[in-house]
């Protein structure tokens, strides 16, 4: 399946885009998506264990991903 992974802030700047499309197997989990982004957009230079949100919730590495899910890579937050 193909997943459009949302990028923000420094990640979006590094990629030059607000999202990156990756192809992963149909039984892919968050960790697989992260690995695919590393390959598709190496300029983003993700940390070892980047924060990922699936459908607006932080999601662990082993959470399964479906085509309809909204997946986002979350740079270290800095609100307030």
């Amino acid at each position: 399946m193909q997943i459009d992974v949302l990028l923000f802030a420094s990640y979006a700047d590094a990629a030059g885009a607000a999202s990156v499309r990756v192809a992963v197997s149909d039984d892919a989990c968050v960790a697989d998506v992260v690995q695919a982004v590393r390959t598709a957009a190496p300029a983003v230079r993700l940390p070892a264990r980047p924060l990922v949100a699936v459908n607006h919730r932080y999601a662990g590495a082993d959470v399964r991903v479906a085509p309809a899910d909204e997946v986002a890579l979350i740079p270290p937050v800095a609100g307030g």
Partner: protein
Amino acid sequence: MRTALVGTRIDVAAIAADVASPTNGALSLFVGTVRDSNDGRPVDGIEYNAYAPMAEREMAAIAREAADRFGSEHIVIEHRTGYLALGEASVAIAVAHPRRANAMDATRWIIEALKQRVPIWKLEHYTDGTRQWVVHWQGHGGVQGQGHGGVQGAGNDGDEGREGAAHA
């Protein structure tokens, strides 16, 4: 209880009025504002960028957790997005409670939770024309699989140990 990402100026008096109630004797407010310098670098302004639907969800979740922990539904959290000039309010938190200790504890808990969990980023604009994404100190490279981020650090109000590549 009300939480919002807002694109226009935060009205502190309106937020205070929102939580006020004659059942409460104590009202605690916290306002974060844009500072004129950071790590000794003169700042012109800060651009706040949010992953809006998730930021709104996290803010609402934080308000709900604070209400349960501290025992008051009289909570308002607003966070601003877009470009803010010096002195403008980026975030405002108001908690009303019958007891002052709870009102103040809740306010503090909320600002710390917000800074750890809500997906908002800031691009500092310096007077020399450069810009940089503010990155708070982290003990390690993000925490995946903990339910929410283990991101640590402070905010515009007393950040320390920042890193981040120059942006433009």
